Each structure stands twice: as structure tokens, then as C-alpha cells.
């Protein structure tokens, strides 16, 4: 697990986390990944669709993903899938995010208690 920074960027690693999680189940191409993100997050997370590709290329460069060109229904697209290194990275990112989410939740609960008392 990577050491924590003093002032972490909270959205750092979120796109990677979501993409790795989606691709863990099945290989997908860029358009399908964006649609899945939109559908499975209830449109809470909706990004400019084209910006998914630098993230995918970065993950592939790091060895977390592999790609291949496939022809489906007469259309040639580049499909991505997770490598074993990508699975490790997903585990690390998920752990970090869960810790962060728990910490934030604790602070919010404390704040609500303080309001209730006052």
C-alpha cells in the first residue's frame, strides 16, 4: 500500500478504481466503460466521455490493464481487461478509498452528534 500524503487529493485514483473494478468482471471498450460508469453510479459520476482514454492508456502503461483489438458486429474496437498487477492495484485503491470513506463518515457523524446536543 502506498504511503499516505499529508494533504491527499481526494479524487486521486477514483477513475482508476472504478475502471479497474468494472473491467475485473469483463473486458470492455471505452464507450462501454463510460456507459457502465454512468449506469452503475446512477449518473452521480458522469465525466466528459473522451477523458477516459488517457486513464486507460496510463493504466495499460503501468501494467494494470492489457488491450486487444476485437471486431464485434462489424465494428473494430480496442477492448481492455485487467492484469494480475491490475487486480493488486484495485485491492490497494479499494482499501485506501474505504479507509478514507470511513474517516469522513466518522467526522460527519461526530458533527451531527454535536449539532444534536447543542
Amino acid at each position, binding site marked *: 500500500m502506498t504511503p499516505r500524503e499529508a494533504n491527499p487529493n481526494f479524487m486521486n485514483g477514483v477513475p482508476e478504481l472504478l475502471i479497474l473494478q468494472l473491467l475485473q468482471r469483463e473486458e470492455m471498450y471505452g464507450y462501454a466503460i463510460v456507459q457502465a460508469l454512468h449506469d452503475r453510479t446512477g449518473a452521480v459520476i458522469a465525466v*466528459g466521455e473522451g477523458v477516459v482514454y488517457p486513464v486507460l*492508456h496510463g493504466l495499460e502503461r503501468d501494467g494494470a490493464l492489457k488491450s486487444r483489438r476485437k471486431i464485434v458486429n462489424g*465494428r473494430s474496437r480496442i477492448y481492455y481487461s485487467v492484469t494480475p498487477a491490475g487486480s493488486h492495484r484495485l485491492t490497494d485503491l479499494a482499501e485506501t478509498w474505504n479507509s478514507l470513506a470511513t474517516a469522513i463518515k466518522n467526522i460527519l457523524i461526530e458533527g451531527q452528534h454535536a449539532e444534536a446536543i447543542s
Partner: protein
Amino acid sequence: MQKPFHEVRERLLGAGIAPRHVRRYVAELTDHLADLTAEEQRAGHSQEDAKCAALLRLGKPNDLIRAMLEQRQFQAWCVRAPWAIFGLAPILLLSAAQFIAVRILLSGIPKFMRNSTATPFAHHEWFFVWFCIGLIIYFGAPVLIGWAIGLIAIRQRLKIIWPVIGLALVAFLAGTMGFRAEALGMSIVSPRVYGYVYGLLHAVVIFSLAALPYVYWRLQKVLSVD
């Protein structure tokens, strides 16, 4: 009519992203645009409206460019280490080419000179051909290396300074340095520096030939902007 991602491609290349990464990014954006356009058409829009909506959903050029620039590992080597690509590499390539050329020239003497028994081709025509090969490598290598420098600079949309440094370095070294083979022992080779005038003239000729593709491209760029 410009292709949809022309601005994205040109700005990414100008910002130092390697051409192969830009090419792949643009190809995938084009595929994605086709999928989005098809989706919008299925929703009932005309082809023109569908394409506009698809382009909006894909993201503004600034956002697409910024996302790629954040991935610093995609920078080209000629941007990360221009001193290596335009300084060190040309010197090494030129040295290697001159070494090969000199070896060819020297090896021809025992092989093809009259009365040689090394090969059945001891005849002045074969000698001439063998030596021409060596001379072509010797005089052609600086020009070819210069063209390679120009091609790298064109592909990466580089500013003028580093390509000119590389071309000048190659022209200067190739133009002012030479080799003299002593007949004694047929294998003594010594480097020498030509006289100033001849050397500089030679360097200017090499520079002019080597810079041709790059100069042509820059002229085309200036004329198209005008």
C-alpha cells in the same frame, strides 16, 4: 473541412506527447464519436444534430487535451531529453557511419587492387564499385541523419531551436572532419581537420541538404497560416 480532432492532435503533439500515443488517442476518440453518434441517431436526432451532440458529450478539446497532458509518461523522448536526441544520438550515428565507411574503403584496397589474389574480382571496375559504396555511406550518412532529425522535429511539431542545433552539429562534424588513408601498410587511418574554407563550405552544403525536408515543412506551415 478539418477532421474533428485535428486541434486535439496538433496541440498534443506541440505539447510534447509522443506521436504514437496521440495517434491512438485520436483513433479511439473517433471510434467513440461514431458510437455516440449512432446512439444519438437511435434517439431520433438527425445525423448532423447527432454528431454535434456526440461531440459535446465526448468533451471540449481543452478537457480532452488536459486529460492527456496529465499523463506525463506519454511525453516523447525528444521533448524529455532533446540533448540526447538532437545532440548525442546524431554524433554517435555519424561516428558509426564514418567508421563503417572507412572500414569498407580500407578493406577494398587489398581485395580489389591490381595483382591482388584475395578475390577473383581484382579489377578496377569492381574496385570502383566497392569504393563508391564506401563513399556513398561516408557522404550520404550526414544527410540521412539530418533528414531523420527533420522528420522527428516535424512529427513532434517541435520549435526550431533543437532541430537546428542537431543539423548544425552534424553538418559541422561531417564537413570539417575527414580521414586520410596512408598507402604504407594500407591500414593506417588518421583523422584530420580540413582547411577552414573548404570545411565550412562542405558543412554549409551538408546543412543545406540535410535541412531540406524540415525547411520545406516549416515553409508550408507559414504559408498555410498566412
